[in-house]
């Protein structure tokens, strides 16, 4: 094949374009936080998930251990059914506590896991028995105002 300077420029252009896409995916987007590692799925029921979204992080002691994979409404219990994919490297006792927490005052919501003391570990398809729902700011303010009104009587 005959080589021309044109080919070099076009090659550089294509490389620059693909590099831009890769930068967007890894540096700007959340590609780097998708872990391709083996995961197992656990479930949790919450009475209120607040602003939790799929792909939100699951953390234990602040360490990223998994991601929320799907959120559906269970129409038998009328509770939110949240499926989470946990990294296989991490095992959790059967009585682990799952809370919906917020990073910062108005930041992203995530699931925080507090390990219990059970000898038995949660297996694929297992379920967190103890959960705590998201703190809804309006409810909190409402309670606070009721308390204030009662204490001032």
């Amino acid at each position, binding site marked *: 094949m005959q080589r021309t300077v044109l080919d070099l420029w076009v090659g*550089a252009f294509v490389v620059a*374009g693909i590099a*831009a896409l890769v*930068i967007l995916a890894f540096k*700007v987007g959340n590609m780097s936080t998708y872990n391709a590692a083996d995961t197992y799925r656990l479930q949790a029921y919450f009475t209120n998930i607040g602003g939790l979204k799929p792909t939100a992080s699951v953390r234990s002691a602040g360490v990223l251990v998994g991601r929320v994979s799907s959120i559906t409404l269970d129409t038998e219990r009328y509770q939110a059914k949240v499926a989470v994919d946990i990294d296989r490297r991490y095992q959790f006792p059967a009585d682990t506590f799952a809370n919906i927490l917020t990073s910062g005052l108005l930041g992203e919501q995530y699931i925080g896991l507090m390990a219990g003391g059970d000898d038995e570990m949660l297996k694929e398809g297992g379920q967190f028995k103890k959960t705590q729902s998201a703190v809804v700011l309006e409810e909190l303010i409402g309670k606070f105002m009721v308390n204030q009104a009662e204490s001032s009587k």
Partner: protein
Amino acid sequence: MPVPRGVRAIGHSVIEAVWRIGIASRFLALTLLHSGLSWRRFQLIVKELFSSGVMSLIIIGVAGTFVGMVLGLQGYETLKRYGSESALGSLVALSLVRELGPVLAALLFASRAGSAMTAEIGLMKATEQIAAMEMMAVNPVARVVAPRFWAGVISMPLLAAIFSAMGVFGGYLVGVVLIGVDAGSFWSQMQAAVDVREDIVNGVIKSVVFGIVVTLIALFEGFDAPPTAEGVSGATTRTVVESSLAILMLDFILTAFMFRGV
């Protein structure tokens, strides 16, 4: 009963527009049908990639950086009121990746490369080069139109990605380096907000659609131009106007399909 002149004029232009859409569709089908040659002789596409893609790099890069810098400044001013300057990264990145990158890159591409394509093909027609090709049994659609079409379709998403990446860099420059937003929260909030499948892939799909539409309009207007100096200049103007309108309207439709907030 005689029809008033104004009504006749409206009817004429509507029928004319529908007619042109029909011919343009046939032109697209013809281009796709005769694309075999340009893929077998890839050098043809490479040559057009140089003139439409590489030559647009500077304007795309500079425009992207400045759009990102403006977003950084304006976004900071607004976010400061709510005390959430740390969300600057996600604001800059989301608006670039979802909307501004594909749309502005396509608008620039239409005026930088699309107009050149129209003028080139229109002039080829005016100077009877197209007719000469037909005389030599060379299919002008396969030889002239198809390579330019594919070069446009390939370079548009790459240019849009470069625009967005440069824009994020510009936002970083103003937000973090100049104003002093915390770099860690700038990047981490951005990564938390931008989803690869939802935002980046949808942006790429948008830019591919814009690439097809802009290149098709440019090539069709050039091929359809009356072979006079006036005809070529009118066709070039129409290319820029029509493709700009098409980009903005299609952007609304695509956005309505992609981001319904569910």
